[in-house]
């Protein structure tokens, strides 16, 4: 089994190279980018003074050939893309993600600042999802087709059917704008640094309530039903009947025998959820003015801030790849039948 996981870890390398190579190549092909942005900026500066002149000639004249060449060299566009990729990769190996073309700050610093926010939302969402879905799924399986089961299904699917950003806007207009129960946005208050630790925690929760509801509204359906259906499968299985035939009360058979088997598919999803932690939803972040990963990624794409795009890609793809391996480890822990890499399986 150890050799299987070593092999899996080694496979991360080519997969990672593939992902970054592809995206790097795409950033070179699509129109726009820091050079054009610099040209536009120069153009805007000039059009103020020379208004009625033909646009092309102005753009050409805004920056001299020398200046353009200098810019290309600065951003690494003077070399063929594969050469630049190798240089970029070499820097990444030394944990240097480069400089943002938009903020002229190191990419790592920008990403680092967003980490606490995204990790807070990610982990809270993860914990709340498990904390609600597993007990709810169990209760629904045990009371299949009851009023409780049907009512909770309706609620869960209602949440699933509503897009998160719609929930976000509705909450914001009602609870934050009209009734002013919650702040309009942001991660913490402006005077956060002056608050005591307890007040700081309350302040974070106060700001986080509405975004969390928006994040969570749609996330219960899939896992709740995964738990419910797989528990129902296991409840009708022969070994649960065996347990009852041994003299075990039904309730105990559910928790001792059926439940563990039902959590195997849930364990499979664990690794994927880890990468969800940092992806976030840019729409919800935008609506609540939260400086998280989703918003950063979206804005840097729109602004053609390629070093940041690549930096986010490096971190999210690594998390995703490691998350997949973690899923496999989780499955191997809960299911003794799973023995990776032995007997050719």
């Amino acid at each position, binding site marked *: 089994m150890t050799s299987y996981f070593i092999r899996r870890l080694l496979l991360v390398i080519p997969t990672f190279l593939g992902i970054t190579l592809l995206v790097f190549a795409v950033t070179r092909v699509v129109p726009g980018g820091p050079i054009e942005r610099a040209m536009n900026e120069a153009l805007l500066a000039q059009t103020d003074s020379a208004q009625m002149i033909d646009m092309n000639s102005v753009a050409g004249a805004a920056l001299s050939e020398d200046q353009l060449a200098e810019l290309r060299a600065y951003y690494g566009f003077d070399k063929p893309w594969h050469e630049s990729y190798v240089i970029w990769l070499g820097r990444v190996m030394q944990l240097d993600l480069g400089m943002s073309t938009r903020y002229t700050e190191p990419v790592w610093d920008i990403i680092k600042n967003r980490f606490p926010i995204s990790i807070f939302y990610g982990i809270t969402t993860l914990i709340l999802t498990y904390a609600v879905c597993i007990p709810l799924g169990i209760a629904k399986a045990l009371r299949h087709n009851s009023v409780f089961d049907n009512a909770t299904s309706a609620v869960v699917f209602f949440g699933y059917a509503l897009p998160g950003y719609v929930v976000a806007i509705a909450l914001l207009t009602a609870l934050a704008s009209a009734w002013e129960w919650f702040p309009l946005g942001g991660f913490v208050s402006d005077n956060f640094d002056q608050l005591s630790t307890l007040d700081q925690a309350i302040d974070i929760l106060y700001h986080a309530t509405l975004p969390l509801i928006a994040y969570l509204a749609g996330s219960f359906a899939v896992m709740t039903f995964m738990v419910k259906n797989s528990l129902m499968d296991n409840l009708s299985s*022969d*070994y649960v009947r065996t347990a*009852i*035939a*041994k*003299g075990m009360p039904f309730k105990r058979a559910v928790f001792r025998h059926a439940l563990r088997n039902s959590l195997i598919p849930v364990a499979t999803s664990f690794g994927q959820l880890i990468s969800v932690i940092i992806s976030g939803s840019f729409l919800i972040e935008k609506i609540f003015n939260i400086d998280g990963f989703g918003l950063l990624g979206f804005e840097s794409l729109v602004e053609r801030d390629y070093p940041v795009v690549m930096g986010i890609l490096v971190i999210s793809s690594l998390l995703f790849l490691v998350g997949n391996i973690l899923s496999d480890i989780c499955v191997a822990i809960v299911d003794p*039948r799973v023995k990776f890499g032995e007997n050719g399986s």
Partner: protein
Amino acid sequence: MAALLEVRGLRAGFDTDTGYIEVLDGVSFELAAGETLGLVGESGCGKSVSALSVMNLLPQPAGKITAGSIGFQNRDLVTLPKEEFHDVRGNRISMIFQEPMTALNPVHRVGNQIIEAVKLHEPNLSSAIARRRALEMLERVGIPAPDQRLKEYPHQLSGGMRQRVMIAMALTMQPDLLIADEPTTALDVTIQAQILDLLREMQRESGMAILFITHDLGVIAELCDRVTVMYAGCVVEQATVTQLFSTPRHPYTQGLLRSIPRLDATPKQPLTTIPGTVPALIDMPAGCRFRNRCLNAEDDCELRSPDLIHAAGRQIACHHPVAEVMP
């Protein structure tokens, strides 16, 4: 004969989307202490439903017993409260199932599953003693290297070994009655013979009664003292093994026995079958349920379903039984 288990007029069935379907139409049989009773009949005749009714293990919430009684050690299992049933199941009555592949929990160690059976009924027993009991049971059912097997998971054992584990688990509390629901159907013939030998040996040691459910008349002949033949939810004939095999009285029993391929028959002949098919549960004919396929059927078979009556040391439910001598 003081009966250990006495099933009287048992009616049971299932609620389905199209309504209630009755599977057992007044089943009666009894079993003396230490005796082995074979319950035989084709698929869907209600053998397993009868057995599951005794254990109160009918699939819930669809399955239910609507009438009749199941007497066991001065208790009626039909009306026994759920809490008291935990004390009967796995303790006084145990059950083994057809599919040893799925009857054990795949994610728990074999040893723990046996220890659990002990601890359920003797919660004050120390873990060490419970473990030793499990070990002894594995040894008794003939599992080699039981020490090591205790720590293994079900998927690491063969089908025959798993059925032995099931038997060990069922017998840890030395039950008075073992219900075996086609325990050898899923196994190879050689393993089948080993399991039957094991059951016989276990019975000799402990003196328990066995209710053996099968559609294999060969197994019945080998293991059982008496046989109850079921057809479409009814008991049609009940007799000792010798009586039944030498002189079957019910036309259905006779048909079953004739359907067994014989070594001394002329080779290359088509196998004898009973013409027609079993009537559907939702569309049971009035009168005798076997009359559509019966060679002896007459007009009165349609009017009244035959009662199970005692006749010359056996019980039979037929208006026109075949003569004592097998033609």
